[in-house]
């Protein structure tokens, strides 16, 4: 596959030896750190991170992205610019660091049973309009308690009811994003099927 000149240069320098490679590593680290700072700053507002935290997380993310880029260099197939491919590792590592950081901010999030009294608010069901959603809610709760597996219910609780970010949960459980997403995906499909069967939701569009 034809790659652009800058990409070709990156690959040549990173695959070289001695001073050329050392200089390329330094350039790469600069690039990744700059990207990690930009990305961490982009997310900092919503997470109310301090300047020190941003800088610390950006450095950690850049260091791990650097390791990932170098380890996977042979898998780069030139389908994009080299820098775009490398940035992919930066954004993912920033997500991982922020997922870990969540627990330093919220160490006390419980991982025991579902607080059902909180669930209506999660879905924006107000007390004044309870007559409209009560029936659906009874069916929904019954489905969560009886149709989901224990694992599906735990993931549903953490993410949906307790509001734990998926990346924070993956860090805590020592698993990957896809595994949690799949569990939740199957749970969502199962719950929808029940609500459709009981006439509380329309068929999939």
């Amino acid at each position, binding site marked *: 596959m034809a790659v652009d000149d800058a990409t070709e240069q990156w690959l040549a320098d990173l695959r070289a030896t001695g001073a050329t490679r050392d200089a390329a590593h330094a350039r790469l680290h600069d690039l990744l750190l700059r990207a990690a700072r930009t*990305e961490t700053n982009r997310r900092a507002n919503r997470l109310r991170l301090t300047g020190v935290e941003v800088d610390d997380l950006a450095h950690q993310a850049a260091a791990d992205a650097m390791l990932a880029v170098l380890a996977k260099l042979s898998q780069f197939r030139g389908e994009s*610019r080299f820098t*775009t491919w490398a940035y992919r590792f930066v954004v993912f590592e920033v997500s991982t660091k922020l997922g870990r950081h969540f627990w330093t901010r919220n160490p006390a999030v419980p991982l025991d049973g579902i607080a059902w009294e909180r669930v209506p608010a999660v879905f924006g069901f107000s007390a004044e309009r309870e007559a409209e959603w009560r029936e659906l809610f009874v069916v929904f709760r019954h489905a969560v308690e009886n149709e989901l597996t224990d694992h599906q219910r735990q993931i549903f609780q953490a993410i949906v009811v307790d509001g734990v970010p998926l990346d924070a949960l993956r860090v805590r459980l020592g698993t990957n994003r896809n595994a949690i997403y799949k569990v939740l995906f199957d749970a*969502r499909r199962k719950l929808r099927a029940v609500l459709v069967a009981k006439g509380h*939701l329309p068929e999939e569009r």
Partner: protein
Amino acid sequence: MNDHIDLDAFLHTDPRDVGCEEATEALHVYAELYAADPQAARTRYPGIAAHLKACGPCSTDFEGLLALISE
């Protein structure tokens, strides 16, 4: 503030959704195509488009990547 989850949307699953692993693996290719022509990216990779619509963490990564390459 309207900060709740829409139950109908939350329970909607798209069978084309490729999941996080496949989406992450191709995110650099998708992002460059998207930066040039969003509709072309969605048409060429419907499974990734479906995933990014449904997965918060992957779409956050995607927005970050897009911002980095659009600088």
